[in-house]
């Protein structure tokens, strides 16, 4: 919000004749934007001038990639559209990783980029890049606005496309001359999207066929992805699982869609998923996928995935159906509409034998680690975090071992509680994501469970957290390695740790230099106390946990193996 002392924009802002920049700001406000992220530059100056006294909370990252991740996490935490603004050329190019991250994880975002003057486009002008060309494969839709009369329509379309169907990032490129051009906005504008249709309601007969398959199944598994969270359908999912009595496993991005504390929860499946989830999928006779896309990290070897199962796939994206795995009963539409219809038709079944089998797997192969070790085990840090936050914090992660341990050892109970780069696997996502999530959820505890190398990639954003007084917590699980790469090198490259370590700064000192709180923890006995202090801090806080250096993530389905060919089960069994 702008202080009242700022110079006013003057009476011109009241007229229906407006500049492109003013139309953009008005459309953002009309679309409900009260918070956005962005970094200024030459060709976006007219737009920033209009933002000077706009009622929008504006967060400036230290790098456009960080800002893009913040907008992404803001969207994931709030369910609203995240907005990121950048200048042309380098500003726009710095968005690519963030847009690709949002695209893979279906986050609703609108990115706005400035562009050089229309008549200079194509002339290799200063800070010119072919932004729509560069970002086309990493956006759901993008376009350049070449005429001020199209600005309002295109921005409305952008919000509509980003937030409907399978959600995703939309980029609008705005040449600076369009920002300053004037247009009379007195006539209402309509969206023109002849090629964009969203199927929300599922086909009634397909839903009945799916319900019958569920009622006939003796060994079903519900396999849930991030789509259920995007659809705000976690409650409907719980009702379905309850009524039909189904065990529930989720993908990484699906964590939080189903309370992991419930006995029917099978936790996460896949490469580093729970052994009991993977066994259940491999032995089930019916797999009910909801808002999930059969990613290779979930299925393992495709040919032998769920070999005995009939497959139901409920998804809003028709292109996701039968892309990787042949689907027997596809239902295209929004889970929010389809699940209640399905609930009406399913019946309760005991499935005693099936649940007994699952309980045995759960007992035999829980997620585990050596609790007696004298070193700091990363799993212990996360368990302690979960205990002290009563499982209620919003967790963001880096990518790699830290991410998998967070998924395995924190217990998620509600949607939008885990914010992690699943599809693209973007290292450096955790810190800016924590900032975006904290902006969206000011009253909540937001913790970035990070790796040292992931944190290195975007740690400059700590200054953004300090500046905006965001009390985020960063737990660095510091093993001095790119841990997941090291694990693969240990297992598959004869322990040749090629270029998977480098020297790190003293993170507590870095944190303090930036105005945050820094804590170093190198003794196991100090872990609970350090976490307690971190949670009590009102300022951003970085806790650097010097963990066991060569700890591995177990179980593990090696790439190209079937889900039930897990390594590390003997280790889990011996310490369970």
């Amino acid at each position: 919000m702008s202080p009242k002392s700022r110079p006013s924009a003057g009476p011109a802002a009241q007229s229906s004749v407006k500049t492109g920049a003013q139309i953009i700001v008005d459309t953002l406000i009309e679309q409900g934007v009260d918070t956005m992220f962005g970094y200024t530059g030459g060709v976006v100056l007219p737009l920033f001038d209009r933002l000077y006294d706009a009622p929008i909370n504006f967060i400036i990252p230290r790098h456009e990639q960080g800002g893009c991740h913040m907008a992404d996490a803001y969207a994931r935490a709030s369910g609203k559209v995240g907005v990121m603004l950048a200048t042309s050329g380098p500003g726009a190019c710095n968005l690519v990783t963030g847009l690709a991250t949002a695209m893979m994880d279906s986050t609703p975002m609108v990115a706005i980029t400035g562009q050089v003057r229309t008549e200079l486009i194509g002339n290799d002008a200063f800070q010119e890049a072919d932004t729509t060309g560069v970002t086309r494969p990493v956006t759901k839709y993008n376009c350049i606005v070449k005429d001020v009369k199209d600005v309002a329509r295109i921005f409305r379309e952008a919000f509509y496309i980003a937030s409907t169907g399978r959600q995703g990032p939309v980029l609008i490129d705005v040449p600076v001359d369009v920002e300053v051009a004037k247009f009379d906005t007195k006539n209402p504008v309509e969206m023109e999207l002849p090629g964009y249709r969203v199927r929300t309601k599922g086909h009634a007969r397909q839903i009945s066929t799916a319900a019958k398959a569920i009622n006939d199944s003796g060994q079903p598994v519900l396999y849930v992805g991030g789509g259920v969270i995007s659809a705000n359908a976690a409650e409907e999912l719980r009702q379905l699982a309850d009524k039909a009595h189904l065990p529930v496993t989720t993908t990484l991005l699906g964590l939080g869609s189903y309370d992991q504390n419930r006995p029917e929860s099978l936790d996460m499946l896949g490469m580093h998923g729970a052994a009991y989830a993977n066994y259940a999928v491999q032995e089930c006779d019916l797999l009910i996928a909801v808002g999930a896309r059969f990613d290779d990290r979930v299925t393992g070897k495709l040919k032998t995935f769920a070999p005995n199962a009939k497959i139901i796939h409920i998804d809003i994206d028709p292109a996701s159906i039968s892309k990787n795995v042949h689907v027997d009963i596809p239902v295209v539409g929004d889970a929010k509409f389809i699940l209640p219809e399905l609930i009406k038709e399913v019946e309760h079944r005991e499935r005693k034998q099936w649940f007994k089998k699952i309980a045995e797997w759960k007992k035999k192969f829980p997620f585990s680690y050596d609790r007696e070790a004298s070193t700091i085990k990363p799993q212990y840090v996360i368990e302690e975090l979960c205990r002290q936050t009563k499982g209620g914090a919003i967790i963001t992660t880096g990518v790699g071992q830290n991410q998998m341990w967070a998924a395995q050892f924190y217990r998620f109970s509600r949607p939008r509680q885990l914010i992690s780069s699943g599809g693209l696997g973007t290292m450096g996502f955790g810190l800016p994501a924590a900032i975006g999530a904290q902006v969206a959820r000011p009253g909540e505890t937001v913790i970035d469970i990070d790796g040292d190398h992931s944190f290195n990639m975007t740690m400059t954003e700590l200054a953004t957290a300090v500046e905006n007084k965001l009390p985020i917590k960063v737990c660095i699980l510091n093993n001095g390695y790119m841990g997941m790469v090291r694990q693969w090198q240990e297992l598959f490259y004869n322990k040749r740790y090629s270029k998977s370590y480098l020297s790190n700064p003293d993170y507590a000192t870095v944190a303090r230099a930036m105005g945050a709180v820094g804590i170093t923890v190198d003794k196991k006995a100090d872990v609970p106390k350090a976490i307690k202090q971190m949670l009590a801090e009102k300022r951003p806080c970085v806790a650097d946990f010097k963990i066991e250096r060569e700890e591995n993530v177990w179980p593990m389905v090696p790439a190209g193996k079937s889900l039930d060919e897990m390594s590390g089960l003997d280790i889990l069994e011996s310490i369970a």
Partner: protein
Amino acid sequence: MKHIISALVENKPGVLAHVAGMFAARAFNIDSLVVGRTEDPQLSRMTIVVIGDDRIVEQVRKQLAKIVPVVKVQDFVGQPVVARDLMLIAISAPPERRAEVLALIEAFKGKVVDIGQKFVMVEVSGPENKIEAFIEACRPYGIKSLARTGTIAMPRQAPLEARS
């Protein structure tokens, strides 16, 4: 198997790049791609010939439909369609062999559109296999240069029973 896919797209900049980029990014093979205007100035038609099994072509169709400015996608496989290619071909035709070459052109219902001392340029249209056959027939005389469109296609309008 060859599939002829017809996509009606919004006549906007960037659409061709989007479609071509999607094919490249998803490793689908394009045999030919033709874009042109339609009766509606707002819309263009892309006719794309794709080679792949049913599963791949199904994905191609869905991924095309997912592109925002793509309005409608049809796969003509299994339907009666009229499919045509157009070719311009310059054939070596010195005076002593010219009669022979012209007879060949006549046999393929080609149209001579340019004629020089040592060559003739011919316009030929028809189904792809006819074009291929004509190229093979011309080879012994020497092909100076060749340009061809990809396939364009339209489903037959007359009802099936009327054609017996």
